[in-house]
């Protein structure tokens, strides 16, 4: 057997590279990289949220570091505990500002400034197609919606801060060919649930551990940025390595003869509204399976569904209607800019008139229920990034996931509801 890691003779022709091979080769300053090869890619941006800045500083300080390698590339974002809900959060905010000053961090987004660190850099142009980033948080996969490659590396982000890079094994790619367009009442989030459930249940027999999920095909054109973000986000919790949409410069797309680990096809026309049962996005079922289940807590937002278009879709159902008695509903814009647009366009008025509560831009209840938590014994339906026990507060709560339309319809009826029923009502 020969080496699978470093066999220069086995390097594929340039015409057979996947997009992730091209992006990692470029970031590592190499002509080509092979799947399985270990490289040191240099990120253009390194994003850390408020939950980890202090730990990173403590770890590097204990080793003797007083300066980070490329402070101009580092970005601190406060999106997890935005409206400080505890004395600890207030002192954490002060510590983050102090660390940013000591390290000369190039980009700092404090409370009420940027919003969610996985969304506003897409909206303000900081993240561009073809970029390579490292982030602390796994949900940085949203940047794949713009054709940027972002790897969430958890606590190993400290190595990136210290040295400017982190060893990365070039991952294999699962290519997902999208065709058609979504029917009314269905959302990209539902596509993500179908795909996540299918991959987890072995429907396609494809290994997905740390693989890149790449979306291409004619169906991509029918998905706007918010829809692509929702799809990237919905597959993240499976334990995949990254997500990439085939957008941006064609030179950075996968070659037609690229060596994909698996190829799947999904027809968007056939996608129906889904709900993920408590436990994870891969536990998705058609919404009818659990329709009628009473809910007490609902929210729209999070890194997967916090863009302007997500709120437009929800507002179309909520306009002129009242959410059900006994349901508390939270609207969490993904960015300060989106919050401003919601106000300017009158959508914030629509939400408040329906009885929903507007929360500041950021993660909302999805960050462990630091804000607007779910209680023990309660049922929630939301667009959160995931729904394992305790994600939104009490571990004894029952968090379901759905699309913005499904969450809006369920909040209106007070029970899990197929949004197509309300669409049909006019």
């Amino acid at each position: 057997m020969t080496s699978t890691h470093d066999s220069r003779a086995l390097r594929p022709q340039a015409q057979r590279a996947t997009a992730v091979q091209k992006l990692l080769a470029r970031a590592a300053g190499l002509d080509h990289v092979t799947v399985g090869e270990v490289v040191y890619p240099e990120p253009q941006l390194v994003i850390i949220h408020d939950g980890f800045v202090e730990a990173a500083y403590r770890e590097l300080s204990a080793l003797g570091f007083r300066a980070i390698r490329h402070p101009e590339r580092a970005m601190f974002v406060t999106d997890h505990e935005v409206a400080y809900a505890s004395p600890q959060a207030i002192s954490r905010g002060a510590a983050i500002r102090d660390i940013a000053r000591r390290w000369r961090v190039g980009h700092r987004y404090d409370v009420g400034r940027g919003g969610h660190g996985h969304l506003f850099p897409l909206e303000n142009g900081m993240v561009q197609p073809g970029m390579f980033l490292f982030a602390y948080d796994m949900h940085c996969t949203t940047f794949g919606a713009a054709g940027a490659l972002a790897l969430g590396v958890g606590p190993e982000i400290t190595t990136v801060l210290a040295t400017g890079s982190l060893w990365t094994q070039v991952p294999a790619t699962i290519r997902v060919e999208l065709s058609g367009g979504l029917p009314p009442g269905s959302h990209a989030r539902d596509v993500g649930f179908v795909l996540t459930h299918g991959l987890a249940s072995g429907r396609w027999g494809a290994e997905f551990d740390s693989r890149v999920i790449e979306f291409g095909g004619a169906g991509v054109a029918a998905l706007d940025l918010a829809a692509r973000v929702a799809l990237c986000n919905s597959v993240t919790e499976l334990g995949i390595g990254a997500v990439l949409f085939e957008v941006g410069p064609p030179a950075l797309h996968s070659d037609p003869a690229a060596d994909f680990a698996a190829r799947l096809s999904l027809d968007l026309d056939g996608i129906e509204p889904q709900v993920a049962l408590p436990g994870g996005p891969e536990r998705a079922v058609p919404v009818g399976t659990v329709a009628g289940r009473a809910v007490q807590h609902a929210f729209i937002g999070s890194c997967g569904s916090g863009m302007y278009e997500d709120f437009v879709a929800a507002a179309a159902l909520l306009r002129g209607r009242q959410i059900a008695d006994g349901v508390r509903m939270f609207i969490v814009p993904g960015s300060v800019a989106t919050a401003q647009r919601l106000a300017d366009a009158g959508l914030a008025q629509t939400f408040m008139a329906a009885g929903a509560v507007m929360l500041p831009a950021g993660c909302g209840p999805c960050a462990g229920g630091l804000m607007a938590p779910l209680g023990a014994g309660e049922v929630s339906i939301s667009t959160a990034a995931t729904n394992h026990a305790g994600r939104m507060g009490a571990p004894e709560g029952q968090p379901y996931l759905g699309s913005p339309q499904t969450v809006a319809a369920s909040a209106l009826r007070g029970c899990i509801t197929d949004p197509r029923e309300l669409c049909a009502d006019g």
Partner: protein
Amino acid sequence: MAEPAGGRLIRRGICHLVGDDVSMDDGIIPRRFAAERTTDPQLLLPHLFANIDPALAGRMQHGDIVLAGRNFACGKPRVQGFIAMSALGLAIVCRSMPYRMLRRAVARGMPVIVGGPDPAALAASGDELEIDFSTGAVRNLSRGMHGDVPAMPPILRDIVAAGGMQAQLLDWLARHPEQAVEPQGNLWSATDN
């Protein structure tokens, strides 16, 4: 990071075969130690692989080699298994393991090869092996046989040779003393929002 030196990394030791799907949260160390948050290697070592073979830990010596099947160290990412295995200086050759677990093994300075063959094709438990992690050459000294496994990538060999990720960071700092000093003055115009 610096260009990898990719030096040689050779290990010689007794090998121990384990099967497929040996999990992090129960197969490598019984899960009660995670529940009890035990992190002292001396308390963990007697229980390594106890659910597979209670006597196995007693036969393991420092520097031995684990030959594993598919999906080694799967399941919930408990820290106790790698604390114990790295304290015993074990090396791993497996058919496959989750990527995040490969990262942990390397971070703890463990020689590890992923993509190996069926362990039984290389050796039987108790055989003495010599593995050159830089070439993938395997010598079964007990049986006079030779085999091949994928080489460990040079970048990962460097981290393991340094003693793991933390040791490599200290090494980096020694080579970049300017990072041991807090920056002074306004070095660039930060975007402060």
